[in-house]
């Protein structure tokens, strides 16, 4: 159970209702077809919930980070594929929030408040975990910039109205030569490739983007030239907990499905054997720990404290827990799990351990932070005696 303000309680109730009404009934069908769920954007439009991260001054809801996490958990409970569409839109917004001018914010937020979505174009065929290995270039011209290159695994790429595209403005400078740009759909030379057919998050749109002589105005530059890597990393710090929140929702769903199956299969036996009870307890312990790591991270963020390490911890732990809990649920349910929604939860969780920075990259972040700390000597017996 979460400690929530009355406002949060109302918001979570609305998110639960939205999930039950719009997401859960449609999840299986869209998982199967992999089609884009345009209806969901329409259904959510009146509530402006997709603008929950947008400041009130721009017409958004300006939910606190923790409140956003609570909403995302509910969406993730319903379907992480659909929820990824919504969460990835927030990801691209964060870049603008961090580095955009008021005019850029207006340009980016307005479509979003009208049920359109955004996308974040960082990854390239040669640059996945190694973000600095990108080959997309942006050359300065008299009118602005000309972008050439390609992007892959771009969530929402096929359906987004506005994109944040990262490109090298100074290829010799490596990661310090990366800059971020706002690129609108339909700009000549900007083409969207075939949609990927994925193991999980199947209803989330993932595409390859090609940029050939894409001309954009100078006002499309986000921040300064060379700020790109910083913007990307800070954006991901802000966005990773969103994946953690979806993963907590997914794990909770797996446990609930498993318990429901137990009750159905053992109607006369509310307490099955200890082996089973303890596995259920382990699932619950892991879910709650993942949720609290996430909420703690959001509290740090709200307090204006550093949260980069906690952000990496939260994404890694929550998605690993989602994978473990979904697998345990499948194991406990046996053949019934294999033919149920739990299979989808496993497939979705697998993708979540990879996107938004693989869990290996997150571990590098955490290990660097651990090793960078000043050495602390263990107290000696003598010191303890004092």
């Amino acid at each position, binding site marked *: 159970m979460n400690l929530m303000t009355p406002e949060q309680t109302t918001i979570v109730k609305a998110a639960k209702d939205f999930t039950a009404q719009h997401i859960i009934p449609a999840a299986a069908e869209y998982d199967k077809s992999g089609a884009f769920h345009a209806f969901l954007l329409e259904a959510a439009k009146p509530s402006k919930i997709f603008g929950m991260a947008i400041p009130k001054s721009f017409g958004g809801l300006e939910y606190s980070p923790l409140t956003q996490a609570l909403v995302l958990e509910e969406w993730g409970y319903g379907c992480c594929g659909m929820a990824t569409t919504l969460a990835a839109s927030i990801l691209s917004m964060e870049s603008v929030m961090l580095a955009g001018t008021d005019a850029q914010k207006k340009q980016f937020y307005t479509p979003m408040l009208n049920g359109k979505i955004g996308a974040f174009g960082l*990854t390239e*065929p*040669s*640059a*996945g*975990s*190694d973000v600095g*290995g990108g080959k997309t270039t942006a050359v300065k011209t008299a009118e602005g910039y000309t972008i050439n290159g*390609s992007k*892959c*695994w771009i969530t929402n790429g096929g359906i987004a109205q506005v994109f944040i595209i990262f490109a090298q403005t100074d290829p010799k400078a490596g990661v310090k030569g990366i800059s971020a740009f706002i690129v609108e759909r339909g700009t000549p030379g900007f083409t969207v*490739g*075939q949609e*990927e*057919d*994925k*193991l*999980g998050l199947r209803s989330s749109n993932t595409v*390859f983007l090609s940029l050939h002589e894409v001309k954009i105005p100078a006002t499309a530059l986000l921040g300064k030239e060379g700020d790109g890597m910083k913007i990307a990393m800070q954006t991901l710090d802000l966005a990773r907990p969103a994946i953690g929140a979806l993963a907590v929702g997914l794990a909770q769903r797996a446990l609930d499905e498993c318990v429901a*199956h*137990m009750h159905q*299969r*053992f109607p006369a*036996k509310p307490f*099955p*054997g200890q*082996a*089973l009870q303890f596995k259920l307890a382990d699932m619950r312990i892991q879910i709650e720990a993942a949720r609290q790591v996430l909420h703690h991270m959001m509290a740090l963020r709200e307090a204006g404290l550093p949260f980069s390490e906690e952000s990496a911890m939260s994404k890694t732990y929550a998605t690993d827990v989602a*994978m473990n809990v979904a*697998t345990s649920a*499948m*194991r*406990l*349910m*046996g*053949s*019934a*799990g*294999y*033919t149920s929604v739990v*299979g989808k939860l*496993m*497939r979705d969780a*697998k*993708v979540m*351990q*990879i*996107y938004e920075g*693989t*869990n*290996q990259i997150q*571990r590098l972040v955490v290990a660097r932070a651990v090793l960078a700390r000043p050495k602390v000597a263990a107290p000696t017996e003598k010191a303890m005696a004092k």
Partner: protein
Amino acid sequence: MSTSLTENLNRIHTSATAFGEEFLEPIAADLDRTAKFPRALIAELARQQLLVLPVTADAGMVAHVETLRTLAQSCPAVACILNNHALTAHAISKWGSAALKKTLLAQLAQGETLGALAIHESGPSLGLGPDALTATIAAGKITLNGTKTFVRNAGVADIYVGVARHAAAPGAASSVFFIAHAKTAGISIGAPYPTMGLRGCPVADVTFKNVVLDESSLLGTAETGNAILAELLGAASLGEAALTVGIGAIAAKHAAAASRHRVQFGHPIVTLQAIQQLLAEIATDSHLAWLGIRHAAQLADAGAPFAVEAAMVKSFLGRFSQKMLVDAIQVEGGMGICEVVPPHFQGTLPLARLFRDIAGTTLLDAPDDFPEALVAASL
């Protein structure tokens, strides 16, 4: 292991490897997509003499699990079909009447008759649910009523080897095994289950409504039913475990190859310790489980009890099976989750399919199926 057995095993391994490469690898992805039962392959498996290895002279359970492990590296769904089929032959050979053996074993070996095991039920335990299959035996006839669930090869099989609760044996559940032709009046097949993986192997419920069989269709007796059940479940789980380790081994190989090609931070990622660790753990888990499987199969071939060893394998793989594919995909990253090879990539991408397949190879039969109980009791 005797020299001749090793030679036989080598021959069978070579034959299964060639079969997998020639017949299974080209169709595995399509089979997964269409879920259309690969009927034509049954005749090919017969030609290679791989259909009934557990009951073949000079072969046996070791040869059977070796074949399954090998075929699973090309297409786990076909290996799953084969396991179910071969174990019906095993049951008939071991517990069937001379007449049953005479008519059925040759047909099963030739693939003219396809077999299926009908064991599981939807109740909390076998014989306890509202749909439990019950057998009434009277005047030389067996009457069956109830439903078997998650029957593999359901709908395509010609014969079902099933187990029913003997209605006249109250108290401790007593089971009887029987063999029923698919066309027997009163047998109906439910809609196929939409399974996550192993999609070439159909799975459905088989319902028996006032199905009357001759008493000669019994395998063993009412007294031996529980022992047959334990042995058959043990053998089936060894076969499934062989699929698991085959999938794990091929996934490790594929991920290792990908990690040698994938350059990040200026080097192939296989040079990173974190990647080496993931790859090594998959290969280690798969290999150690295989040793356990082969040992249990050797015991079975020697006529020794092997249920505890089979339960150990099941317990071990319960912890490691899915992890093998979770980690193999992690090594391949975005490419690892592709169901279809994207246009900007050259090569094969089977891990997404294998992730779904492996989930189906180590399923417990019921939530209270707890292999650790047997292991603990043996100590």
